[in-house]
Structure formats: structure tokens, C-alpha cells
């Protein structure tokens, strides 16, 4: 079968099953969620709906999941394209369930298991050939919506098109990085990741270091992962380790490095026994407690004694090392810890790579997406130098794995050749790192070409196919005059679309598309009384965004992470937006005592007025007033569509690695016959309605829902949105609204309370309610 599943059954409504069901609903599937226990599925859905953040992207999405019990409702699987088993890790139970499914499932329906430990070969014993052809392991990571790894295991009998269908669906529709794994215990990520956790904990104890030391070393300099090892154990649950250890003890051969290395961890076992299973329990290696005076404090477990003491940041020099190479070169205990752990973990990865995966890149991808490592093991080895890693292993009196020896001969595990990334194959030759079609990143473009232009905060790229890319490059992609200048350059290069470029795409691969105007620089400008520079930047921004809006070629914005304030205003000026599902966006300027000043007020107002009654602009004014006045953000792209921040023209993409491809296709689709939009003309109510709006705001102040200064900011915003000194019988142009934005912004920016809000935001990351 090649049809993408649209009806899916998930059996087992535990943490994983329910989370998978929710994410399938996010992807637009109709889901049947069943559990052996009565009410378990229904209460799981209710629990997920209430969680913050909820695994459901919007409230409405939860309606796509129907709950039931295995006993009463299993027949419902007959309508399903895909049946996912996510019940308890018990081979007999799973086999019994499959036996029940065999006669019920449609002949072309796929069945997969979310097992993390049981080999596929054991699962399908006793099943029909047809069942085996349609069976695979689809191993999700917790939480399924956010963890990007999906391990896919096909057995010898699994039909290739079944595996391909699951891979494509997981990739495109669920947004996962699908890694094909061999049918070996723990597959890829848990096999390597669990070994790493075990070794990291053991060596930390051996060296007499603290949990803070270990997390500081593994966290920032190494990035495996940002939380460090003890922080990660707290997150995933301390009880996981002994269970996985027991499982591996049964399933791995006796000479496997894991079994040779792993020792009991009494300190961890005692914590689990006492109920300290991590964040899901009473806390783990770290505890957040309250002091007698009510202040929160973090405590940490002393690994030597098991006692709890106040947490103190690590003072190891290694914690401040820049990158893993600097870390392992350090002569301090942090460097020693890193060397010891990496020697064993990298040796293990080289030893098992060919056993567990098709290629090295699969292992690296699995560790990045499944354990949030900044680099996978072979990427780490390259960063350190493969010869150095081999030397460590030799110095420890151990044999160097042949895969590593080959890498030492080749010089590295990866190389860039002809603008492409290549990896060292099993046979010692260089092979392209293969990826599904449509998975492409700006990083790939950067490997093969150089920017057409760049300045301190932005760059222009030829993205291929006649598409000109604008990349923001500043920290957090904050916007400044350089960005605006580069947008003008992009518009100039695109010209009338008769040159090499037919469309413009705003795209970067930062964690966030843009957090908006550079508040730090704005605060300096305020402190310098550089009011003219602030005004110039406002005009530059308005003009740059207008140049995008009215360019003779289509402009597409691509958003991931956050698009706040000026960042979101840029998107509001695009012909279409390609949004990653997890993108969060909104006009948050009032939080720092300002109003959107780069056309954000105007564009939101115009957007909400679209399709409404031109003679009655008040609904659009009120809606914009509420959203901007409250600095409302959409939690994700689906929420953004509900709020009107995204429109039907905009595309939601589940897999961030597909954003570039989707954006290019979206932009090129707009090219034939493209005409820039005509500047809109509005009728707005004018100052006559201000008293009513202000009375409403005063009501919020009286009710304690808004502060006195919120009211000042709201009044400035209201004057913009009502069109200033207009009357309903006159028309207002976009340019008039822009002038009103500037006037309001420049007035507010001089207010000390606005400055205090900006200072507070920069210092704490939180809005000040003054």
C-alpha cells in the first residue's frame, strides 16, 4: 500500500501511546485510542488536553481522538490504515494482542510496535505471512510530539513499500527524523545512549566529582545534551536505568562492552527505592525545595554519601571550555571526565555501528534527535580528531575498533567534497550521506556555495530554482539596521523578477526565526537619547517591510521557533508563510511598553478586516486591539491559524528539515502571473471611539488585570488602530497607519516606564508589570 494513513488505531494509552495518538491527531489523522483498562484512554486524552504545554496543538485537535477499550472496541481497528501497538513491554502480551488483531485488521493495514527493547523477530513469531509483510517496529521517543527521532525497524519479511510508507509518513506528516535501525537490542539510540549514561554516572562517581560538575562538563562544552547526564536522568526517570540494564543483561551478548562495563549504581538504586525517580516523582539528583522563608532553592544529591546538599555551580575550568576539543585537551578533572567517558562511548559506537545501523550518519542522527546531543558520536570523534580517540583507546590497553582504524586512515568520519557531505562507508570508501527527497537545509546550501552578500546581521543566498534567500544571522536573529538594509538589497536584486531571481524567501536555521528588534541596542539608543536614530530605524524597517510587501516578485517567510514583535511583523508582510508546526509567534511589543512600529499594527488590522464588512471596521479594530494590547502569542502554527496570525494561504510543515524545500516550492508556485498586491484602503472609526476603548481598558485596570502603565500603552495603541484623527466617512491609507505607528512608538519610547520594561525584559526575560 502506498496511501498515507489517515485513520490510525493506537493500542495502549500509557504515556507513549497517548502521546503518539495526540501527535497523530496533530498531523490530521483520525485516531482510535484503546486501552485494556476501562476509562484509561479517555482519561489519558483529558490529561493531555489539560497539560501545559499540551501535546495537542489546539483544543479542537483532541476531538480527532476517540477513546475505547480493547475488550469492547477492538473491532474498530478494521477501519484503520495503521495500527500502532504501544502496550506494556511484555512479549506474551504483545503476541496475544497481535493474534487478536490478525483477523480484524484490513488486509492492507500496517501494524507496528512501539517497543523499545524487544526484537521484531520475536514479536512476529507465529503470525501469518501477510501480517509479517505489514509489520514493523516504529519506536517513538518521549514526548512523541516534540522528540524528533523515530526509529524504524523492518524485519526480513516486512514489505519494502510498508517500510517506505511508514518512513515517508513519519517524516513528512509526523515531522520525524526517521532512522532505519537493524533489529538489535535497544536499536540505535538507547543502545548507545544508555551506555553513555551508565558510563557517565560511573566515571563521575569514580573521579569523586559532583552532579553539577558532570552536568556542566557534558552540558555546555560537549552538548550531550544541554541538561547534562544527571539532569537528563531526572527528566527521563531514574528507574529507567536499572530496567534497561536488566533488559540488556538478558539480550546483549556477554562480551558486549555494555555488559563488561556496567556496574550496579547503589546511589541511584537507593534514590529509586526511596521514590526519588526524577521529575515525575519527588525529584531525583536535583530537588527544588522551599527554604523556611519560602524562597525556592535547588538541592543536589552528594554522590558519595547520598545526602542532599544545596546545589552549587561547578567550578571546574572544563565547564567553561569552548567546545569538546578544548574540553578534552584540558588538564583539569573536567577534561579527565570527558576523556574517560568519551573514550568508552566512542569506542562502543565504533564497535557496534555496523551491527545496529546502515551507516554512521544513522547513528549520529539517532543520538542528536533521540538524546538531544549537539553532535552524534562520530561527529564528536571528528571534532576531537579520530587519531586522538584511537590513541586514548590504545593507551587504555584496549583494541582499537576496526571502524575507527579505518577512520584514522581516512582522516575523519565525514568530509565535504564537491559541496556535499560524505561519510566513511563500511568498505572504507566515501559515500554521500543520503536523505529523503525534500529534506534540505540552508547548511547544505552553505556547503556548496557562498553568500551573495552579507553584513553583520544578515546574508543573501542563491537558494536555487530562481529563489533568493534572506538569512538573518545575528544572535537570536534580533533585527537591526543591517537586517533592514539587507532586505532592501534583496528587493533590489530580485528587481522585476526578470533577472536570475523570481522569488524571495526569508529563511534561517536559527533556533528562532527572530525574536524581534534588538532590544539591547534599543535600550542603548534610549540611554543615549538617540531619538533620531530610533526614528531612522523605524522608518528603515517600515520601508524594508513595504519593499517586501510590494516587491514585483512573491515573498515567502519561513518560520521556526519564535517569531516575535518585529520578527512576526516581517512575516505579516509576506505573500505566504511556511511555518513549522512548533513555531510560536505574536506581536509582543506592549509587553515592553511599545506598540508594533514596523507595520505590525497596520498589517494585523488589515488582515482582520479582510473579508469583513468594510463599513463596520470595529470588529477588526477590537480584535487587533485585544491581541496586540495583550501581547498575545500563538503557541504553535495551528494556534496561529486559529488566531488569524496565519491564513489559509500559509503552509504548516511538520518536519523542520523540509521547510526550505516547501518554501521554495510555495514561492515558485506564486510566480506565474504574480502581481504585487494593491495597497489597501480602510475606513476606520477615528477618535470618537477612543473614550469607549479607554473605558474598557480602565475597567481592566480597576479589576487588577492591567496596570496603570498598560493603560497608557493601550491608549497609544488605540489611537493607531482607530486611525488617528480620521472619521468613518474618510479613507485611511496604509501609509497613514504607519505614520501613526511611528508617532505612538516614538512617544512611548521616551517614557521612563517603557525603559524600565525593556531593562527588566533584558535582565530577566520576563515582562515587567509596572
Amino acid at each position, binding site marked *: 500500500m502506498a496511501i498515507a494513513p489517515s485513520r490510525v488505531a493506537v493500542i495502549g494509552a500509557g504515556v507513549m501511546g497517548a502521546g503518539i495518538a495526540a501527535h497523530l491527531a496533530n498531523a490530521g489523522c483520525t485516531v482510535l485510542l484503546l486501552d485494556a483498562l476501562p476509562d484509561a484512554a479517555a482519561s489519558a486524552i483529558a490529561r493531555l488536553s489539560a497539560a501545559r504545554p499540551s501535546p495537542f496543538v489546539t483544543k479542537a485537535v483532541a476531538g480527532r481522538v476517540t477513546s475505547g477499550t480493547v475488550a469492547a472496541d477492538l473491532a474498530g481497528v478494521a477501519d484503520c490504515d495503521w495500527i500502532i501497538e504501544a502496550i506494556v513491554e511484555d512479549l506474551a502480551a504483545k503476541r496475544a494482542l497481535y493474534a487478536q488483531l490478525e483477523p480484524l485488521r484490513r488486509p492492507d493495514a500496517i501494524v507496528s510496535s512501539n517497543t523499545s527493547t524487544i526484537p521484531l523477530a520475536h514479536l512476529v513469531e507465529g503470525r501469518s505471512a501477510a501480517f509479517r509483510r505489514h509489520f514493523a517496529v516504529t519506536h517513538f521517543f518521549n514526548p512523541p510530539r516534540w522528540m524528533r527521532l523515530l526509529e524504524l525497524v523492518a524485519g526480513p519479511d516486512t514489505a519494502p513499500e510498508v517500510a517506505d510508507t511508514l518512513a515517508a509518513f513519519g517524516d513528512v506528516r509526523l515531522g520525524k527524523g526517521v532512522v532505519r535501525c537493524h533489529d538489535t537490542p535497544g536499536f540505535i539510540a538507547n543502545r548507545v545512549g544508555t551506555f553513555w549514561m551508565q558510563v557517565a554516572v560511573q566515571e563521575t562517581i569514580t573521579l569523586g566529582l559532583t552532579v553539577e560538575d558532570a552536568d556542566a562538563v557534558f552540558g555546555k562544552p560537549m552538548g550531550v545534551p544541554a541538561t547534562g547526564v544527571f539532569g537528563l536522568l531526572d527528566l527521563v526517570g531514574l528507574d529507567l536505568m536499572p530496567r534497561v540494564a536488566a533488559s540488556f543483561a538478558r539480550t546483549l551478548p556477554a562480551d558486549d562492552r555494555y555488559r563488561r562495563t556496567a556496574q550496579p549504581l547503589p546511589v541511584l538504586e537507593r534514590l529509586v527505592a526511596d521514590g526519588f525517580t526524577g521529575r515525575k516523582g519527588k525529584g531525583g539528583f536535583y530537588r527544588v525545595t522551599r527554604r523556611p522563608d519560602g524562597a525556592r532553592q535547588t538541592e543536589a544529591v552528594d554522590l558519595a554519601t547520598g545526602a542532599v546538599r544545596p546545589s552549587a555551580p561547578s567550578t571546574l575550568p572544563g565547564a567553561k571550555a569552548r567546545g569538546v576539543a578544548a574540553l578534552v585537551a584540558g588538564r583539569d578533572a573536567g577534561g579527565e571526565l570527558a576523556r574517560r567517558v568519551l573514550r568508552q562511548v566512542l569506542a562502543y559506537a565504533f564497535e557496534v555501528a555496523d551491527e545496529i545501523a546502515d551507516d554512521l550518519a544513522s547513528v549520529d542522527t539517532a543520538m542528536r534527535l533521540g538524546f538531544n546531543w549537539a553532535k552524534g558520536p562520530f561527529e564528536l570523534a571528528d571534532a576531537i580528531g579520530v587519531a586522538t580517540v584511537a590513541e586514548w583507546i590504545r593507551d587504555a590497553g584496549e583494541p582499537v575498533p576496526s571502524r575507527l582504524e579505518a577512520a584514522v586512515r581516512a582522516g575523519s568520519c565525514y568530509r565535504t567534497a564537491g559541496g556535499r557531505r560524505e561519510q566513511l562507508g563500511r568498505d572504507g570508501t566515501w559515500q554521500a550521506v543520503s536523505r529523503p527527497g525534500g529534506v534540505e537545509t540552508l547548511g547544505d546550501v552553505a556547503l556548496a556555495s557562498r553568500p551573495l552578500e552579507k553584513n553583520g546581521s544578515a546574508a543573501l543566498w542563491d537558494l536555487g530554482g530562481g529563489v533568493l534567500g534572506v538569512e538573518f544571522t545575528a544572535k537570536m536573529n534580533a533585527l537591526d539596521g543591517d537586517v533592514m538594509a539587507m532586505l532592501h538589497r534583496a528587493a533590489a536584486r530580485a528587481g522585476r523578477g526578470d533577472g536570475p531571481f523570481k522569488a524571495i524567501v526569508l529563511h534561517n536555521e536559527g533556533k528562532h526565526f527572530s525574536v524581534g528588534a534588538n532590544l539591547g541596542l534599543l535600550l*542603548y539608543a*534610549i540611554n543615549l*537619547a538617540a531619538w533620531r536614530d530610533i526614528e531612522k530605524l523605524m522608518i528603515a524597517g517600515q520601508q524594508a517591510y513595504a519593499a517586501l510587501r510590494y516587491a514585483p516578485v512573491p515573498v515567502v517567510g519561513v518560520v521556526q521557533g519564535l517569531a516575535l514583535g518585529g520578527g512576526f511583523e516581517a512575516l505579516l508582510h509576506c505573500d505566504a508563510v511556511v511555518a513549522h508546526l512548533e513555531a510560536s509567534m505574536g506581536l509582543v511589543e506592549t509587553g515592553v511598553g511599545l506598540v508594533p512600529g514596523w507595520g505590525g499594527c497596520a498589517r494585523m488590522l488589515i488582515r482582520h478586516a479582510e473579508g469583513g464588512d468594510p463599513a463596520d471596521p470595529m470588529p477588526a479594530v477590537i480584535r487587533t486591539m485585544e491581541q496586540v494590547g495583550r501581547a498575545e502569542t500563538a503557541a504553535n502554527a495551528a494556534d496561529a491559524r486559529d488566531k488569524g496570525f496565519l491564513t489559509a494561504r500559509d503552509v504548516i510543515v511538520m518536519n523542520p528539515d523540509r521547510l526550505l524545500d516547501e518554501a521554495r516550492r510555495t514561492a515558485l508556485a506564486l510566480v506565474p502571473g504574480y502581481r504585487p498586491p494593491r495597497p489597501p484602503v480602510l475606513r476606520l472609526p477615528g477618535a470618537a471611539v477612543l473614550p469607549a476603548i479607554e473605558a474598557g481598558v480602565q475597567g481592566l485596570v480597576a479589576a487588577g488585570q492591567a496596570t496603570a502603565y498598560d493603560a497608557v500603552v493601550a491608549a497609544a495603541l488605540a489611537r493607531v488602530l482607530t486611525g488617528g484623527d480620521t472619521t468613518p466617512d474618510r479613507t485611511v491609507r496604509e501609509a497613514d497607519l504607519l505614520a501613526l505607528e511611528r508617532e505612538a512608538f516614538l512617544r512611548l519610547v521616551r517614557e521612563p516606564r517603557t525603559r524600565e520594561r525593556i531593562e527588566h525584559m533584558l535582565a530577566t526575560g520576563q515582562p515587567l508589570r509596572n
Partner: protein
Amino acid sequence: MPAYRAPLDDIRFVLHDVLGTEQLRALPGYEEVTPDLVDTVLDGMAQVCEEVLFPLNQVGDQVGSTVADGVVTTPPGFKEAYATFCEAGFPGLSCDPAYGGQGLPLTLRAVLDEMVCSTNLSFGMFPGLTYGAYEALHAYGSDELKDAYLAKLVSGEWAGTMCLTEPHAGTDLGIITTKAVPAGDGAYHVTGSKIFITAGEHDLTPNIVHLVLAKLPDAPPGTKGISLLLVPKYLPTEDGRPGTRNGVTCVGVEHKMGIKASPTCQLQFDNAKGWLVGEPHKGLRAMFIMMNGARLNVGMQGLGLSVTSYQNALQYAKDRLQMRALKGAARPDQPADPIIVHPDVRRGLMTMKSFNEGARALAYHVGMEMDVILHHPDPARRQEAEDLVALLTPVVKAFFTDVGFESANIGLQTYGGHGYIREYGMEQYVRDSRIAQIYEGTNGVQAMDLVGRKLPAEMGRLLRRFFQPTHELIERESQGDLKDLAEALGQGFRRLQQGTQLILAKGMRDPNEAGAAASEYLRIFGLVAVGAMWLRMARVAQDKLAAGAGPKEAFYRSKVVTAKFWMTRILPQAHGLMASIAAGGETIMALEPDAF
């Protein structure tokens, strides 16, 4: 022979009319500081400086302080002058009355500093260092130490020093090696070598109190491991007289370019007994109290020498008859015209005059803000003043000493060949002023302090204390009779704003960019800060003229003209400096050391 007259008219104008002495009087503790009291104090300072200190300036330079067998002898007359200086109560002018100080405003100390630097910089080093020691001890010393030493320092009976530099550790104090080992009785034994110790040994006072930076045995490396110790030359007896000689000896005095009467000593500490000032390892904090005050004081040295050089150059330009005016004889009755008729001579004089008067106003403004820090009841206002003083300290130190040196040089030039001849005194000011660009942190270090510390501090809050009021001043004057001046200042101010933003934006990415721009930036800052004082002074003068100035009309007219000179002939340097900054640090950093 050079002459000096304290510029009391101008000093009074700045204090009473521009800054407002009533602002001082409004501060708790300064209720007694009436304009009359201020004038009386000023007259007293002028008298001592003109009649006692200035006449010793040339002999001090010619004889210098000398060393023999560890004993330093000051030039003839210094001892007597020092006694007069102490009798006038000047060492303790602004010191805590609890220790015998007069409790007068720091603003007046700034005036005293100016006059002393104008008349005898070398002499000023002795009480200057003593005051620094007083400040650190007053802020951080234990009650025992304060009781034993402060009154002696306040009265000038004993002198003080700051012992920081070692042969291998100047700017980088983190690497000093002088050790302080606990003696068991709460005291320490200090051992090590210090160099460049001003007034480290002399015959003006029966005892000298050294404040010494040293490392305790358990000190962490770097500047976080430095402690400050008090080491007296003679251990005081029970009744406060110099007792047993302590283990500190002067092993040499440097031969210097200028300030020859000030003995710059090499001190050897050999198990000298000392006591900790402040907490262990936190000595740098206490040292900075002295250093910040000292940096402002060094700024006054640049100003003070420029004032004397200007006064003599002016007189010479009026007296020296040579050539005729370009547009025909100005004094046909004489064989030649006085050289003041020549535009180029006047350019030099106006350059000196506009700097002297503008810098004086800025210095006293900073002094008054320091009084606010000490005495204002509102903590927010105190914080504002602290921010402003912190911001302007490197500007005053470096800009005043750079321009002060240039100014002393212009004074010499005005004399022509005679400027180069020793007996006329002008070359001494050039030599004496040169050191001010170097010590208390070279002017390069000041520029780094400004861009590296003061600019980014508190997300720009320090900057706000200067920029917002200056912007408001310019806006206020942008209409009306001073609008040309306001416009000119506004253009310089724009450059300063642009330079600041450029440095902040570029420097965040590449610290070398900030470093490459630092010195030019500091100079723009100085030009604008003095310019802002000139606009304020022009406003006062203009108002006085409008109200009918009577006999002082010429004084106020001169103020308005000089303000205009600064704005139109000096301040535009900011544009060229800004162009250099905008060019970036690429060419500065491009060459490998071997390629130079």
C-alpha cells in the same frame, strides 16, 4: 620668570553662577557652605598657592629631590611650604570632621587641586598621595587603624603613599609578588620590592604611612588575590609618636623627565610589619577608591599646568614686539606690534583659554556630583551621581591630560625660542605635564576603561546620566539666541551618539573593534562634555548680559565668544575622529607583528 594668578573670577563664575553654590548648601552636612564662606576659602587657597607654592616651582625642578643612604631630601623651601600648607588646613580640607577634617565640599578640593597643580605639581604630589591613603583607610580600615592613623593624615602631620607597582607588574597588578605573611598577632610581615612609589620617602613629615598591595599565602591567582596592607615607616608608639623603624627602605630615586621635586622611590619591604586594610584578597576594591579619586586628580594636573602655561603665554604675547599685524601696524608708535595681533598666535591662546575654562567647569561639575554621592539624601540621586562620575572619570583623566599636554606645548610655542630656554619656565610645564598622560592608568587604559567597562555597564545606564541631560540641554537651547551654539554642539553630540552605538554594536562581536576605536572615542567624549559645559556657561553669560552686566560685561562677552570658539573651532575635531572610528580596526590589526 613666569607668574601665576589664581583665576578667581572664573572660578567664582563657575561655582556661583553656572553650577550654583546653593546646590552644595542644600546638601545635608554642607549647611554652612555659604557663598561668602566659599569666597573666603578660595582667597586663602589662592594666597598660599600664589605666594608659597609657585615661587618654589622652578627651584624644585632645578634641585629636585635627592637620595643618599636611603634618606630623601626635598628641595630647599619645601619643608617650610608644607608646614604653611598644613597650617592652612588644606590636607584635611574635605576630610571627615570626626578625624579633624574641615568637612568642606569635594568641589572645593577640586579647586584646591587645580591651584596646587598650576603652581607646583611636584609639591602637590605629597598631600595628594596622603589624601588617597586617607580615602582608602577611611572607607575600609578597621576602627583601630583609623584611630591610629587618620587624624595624622588629615592634619598632614604624617604623609601617605600608594605602593602598587612592582618591576614586572604595572598595569597588570594581578601578577604582583610582594608577600604578606601572618605574624601571629593579627599583623602581617610584608616582603617585596615596589617601584615608582611617589613620595615613598622624604623629609617633610616624621612618619610615612604606606598602603601596600601584596598577596597573602592563600591568595587565589590574579587580581582576585590581592590584599591591601598598611605599613608605616615607623611603628607608632602608644601615644602616637613615630617609634621603632619598620622594615621598609628607600633603595633609589628615579631620574625623571619632569616633576623632579617629587621623589619617585624604589622601596624595599623586608619583613615589614603591616596590617590588613579591608578584607583579605579584596585589596583592589580599596585600591580603586584611591585610584578613582587619583584619576580625577591627575586630570586636574593637565588642567592646572595648562592654566599657568596659558597665563604666561598670554602675557608674553602682549609684551613681545615683533613684526607687524597682517592688516597693517596696530601700534605704529612702537618699533613692532605685540605678537598677539597675529591670528596664529591667537589661535593658540584661544585653544588654551577655551580648554582651560571649559575643562574647569566640567571638573567642578564632577566635583559637585561627588558631593552629591557623599551627602544627598535620595539614594536614586546618589546613584545617578555615582554613575555619572564613574562614566566621566576616564574622560577627565585622559582628555584633560592629553589636551593639557598639548596646551602646555602651545604655551611654549608662543614664546618662540625663549620657550625652549629653561629660565622662562615654559618647558618645565611641558615636561611636568607629560607624566599625567601615563600614571594612574595610561590614557590608553582609560580609553579601554571607558569603552570596555563604562559603556556596557548596567546596559547603558551610566551613559544615560550624561546623554539624556545633554540632549535636553541642546534641545532647550535649539531655539533662541544660542541656537547656533546648540546646533554646533548637537552635531558633535550626534557623532558621540553614533560612535557609541557603533562601538557597542561592533564591539559586541569583536572586542578588538572596540579597542581600536577607544582613544578616538574618548577624545570625542571629552570634546562634547566640555562643549556641553560651554553651552551652559554661554547661557549664564548671555542672561547676565541681557540683565545688564555692568563692569563685568567684558568678562561675559568673552565667555560667549570663547564658547563659540570651542563649538566651531575645536569641537569639529569630533567629525574627523568619528571618521577614523567608522573606518574600523581592520588596518590596525591586519599586520602580523613581524610585518611592522
